């Protein structure tokens, strides 16, 4: 029974994969994959299905979000696990769990009401750029906020799981606390940190509704991070409702979904390989 349940879950994976491949085959019959991936004009009315500009937007949003999220999350995780008094630790953890569980549409709404005016009136003028606030940078900021709790709680868990004897050994030969964190805690938990970051990447890459509400929705190659853009996930969300009645449009969107699916899948495999190798090397 348990085995069959597992088999069912694996079947589900292939079901989704084959469905997406089957439904996106129509557009691949009319044009080649590189043509779709690198052409930059998305205009379904003129039969142009270039995803170039949208892929650039996706990379920018995800990349900036992770650049902001990784250092902040790592530092707060170290503080929580190594430096914070137990009392504070006990208060912070439930807050993090709640933050991780807040529906993304709530994040999107907050971003629309507070982040967009902030970017428009304060942050973009710093760089001497005019922006509407509905831009790639706003989307990256809210994504970073959404990724924090995931990376932090995973890191805190691994940091606290490191055997005390390891740290004690380091401290006893005269290393300071910060040196111990840097040389022992970080090293010993590096595979888990990478796994946490990859999980964060998965969330950032696939996040749809919050991004959709603040990114500006223009599928053109951006001038700067304060230009409006579009990501693969938000493209599907905004176009699916009205376009699915025309087969070639539907097929194009299915191809976008297939790309999302495959990228996330590959990064997960990548993460598993890193974890395994590191575990072998560190022998635990």
């Amino acid at each position: 029974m348990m085995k069959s349940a597992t088999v069912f879950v694996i079947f589900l994976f292939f079901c989704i994969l084959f469905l997406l491949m089957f439904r996106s085959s129509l557009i691949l019959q009319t044009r080649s994959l590189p043509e779709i991936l690198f052409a930059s004009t998305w205009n379904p009315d003129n039969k142009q299905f270039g995803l170039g500009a949208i892929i650039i937007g996706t990379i920018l949003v995800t990349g900036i979000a992770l650049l902001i999220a990784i250092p902040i999350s790592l530092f707060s995780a170290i503080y929580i696990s190594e430096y914070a008094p137990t009392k504070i630790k006990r208060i912070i953890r439930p807050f993090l769990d709640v933050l991780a569980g807040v529906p993304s549409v709530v994040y999107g709404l907050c971003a629309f009401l507070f982040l967009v005016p902030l970017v428009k009136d304060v942050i973009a003028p710093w760089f001497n750029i005019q922006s509407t606030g509905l831009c790639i940078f706003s989307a990256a900021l809210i994504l970073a906020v959404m990724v924090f709790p995931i990376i932090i709680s995973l890191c805190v868990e691994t940091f606290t799981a490191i055997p005390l004897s390891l740290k004690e050994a380091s401290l006893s030969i005269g290393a300071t606390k910060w040196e111990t964190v840097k040389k022992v805690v970080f090293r010993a938990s590096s595979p888990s940190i990478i796994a946490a970051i990859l999980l964060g990447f998965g969330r950032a890459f696939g996040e749809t509704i919050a991004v959709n509400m603040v990114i500006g929705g223009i599928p053109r190659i951006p001038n700067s991070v304060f230009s409006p853009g579009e990501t693969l996930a938000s493209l599907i969300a905004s176009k699916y409702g009205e376009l699915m009645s025309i087969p070639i449009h539907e097929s194009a969107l299915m191809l976008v979904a297939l790309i999302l699916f495959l990228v996330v899948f590959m990064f997960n495999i990548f993460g598993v390989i890193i974890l395994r190798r590191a575990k072998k090397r560190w022998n635990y």
Partner: protein
Amino acid sequence: MQQKNRCIFFHTTKKYFLPATFVIALVSMLLFSGCTTKKENTIKIEGAFALTPMMEKWALEYRKIHPDIIIDINANGAGAGMANALLGLADIGMVSREVNNTEIQRGAFWVSVVKDAVVATINARNPVLSTILEKGITKQQLRDIFITGNISTWGQLIGNSSITDKIIVYTRSDSCGAAETWANYLGPYKQNDLGAHVDLDRISAVNGDNTLAATIQREQFGIGYNNIGYVYTKKIDASTVVPADDLIPVPIDLNNNGILDDEEKFYSNRMSLIHAINNNIYPSPPARALHLVTLHNFSGITKDFVRWILTEGQQYVLDTGYVPLSQEFINEQLRYLEEGTRPELS
């Protein structure tokens, strides 16, 4: 030996029975989703957000006369409504845009039941508001703002070079009837042409009618467009509905004489705008008909419901905030409904 073999076979089947059932159910759901068993007294309606409030009112009133009929309404966008109507999953699809040729080839049949309109909107703190309210904006100027991007500042719009505030153009990121209709008014354009040549620092798109209205409400230099239902939201008394705070509908200089004549000033409340649409003073598009779509032809109780909408149902249109159709137009739609064909299809 025989016995043993059968046993193994039986064992294996049992083991994989549960997942196999799930998978078969899932696959058949995905592949044969076109075939459903239809309940006799249920009308299933799906589609455009623009038409949903009206349909809910109609369903409510119709069920007072026919309490035995169940009307199931689901707002999921014009495209989804169209797709499900063509697959036979929904009896009626609500569609707020023109019917595409591909859809006609797949057997789409439709009648128009009510009208709606799109207006351009600006912020109440717009730097040249008084001039715009006095002179209006011509169609060519709107085209230069939304499509070509040639007019880039509010000063340039009214011919005063000392005002250098840039025009921020807002459009919709989700595919929608409102954008399609607005682009159609400006010329032979589609939604994707809106803002296609506007500088990237002056343009953004937002998701949804209400979000666009909210954005213009706080963006001093912005211009956007909305279905009238999302502009006229402030109720003064039982019959007067005016534009929401900080949201100003852009008056169009219809005869291009450079001044807003008295007969072109009908934006103060919803009723006067509806009156202008009804008398074809406000152009169409951006006024547009909303359609009910089905595969090949309406039949049975569904046909009866659509017939009721086109006759008695019309009395609820004004109060719900939509524009009634002219009697001539209704007669035409009734004829299409009875004959099961329309000129576009032949």
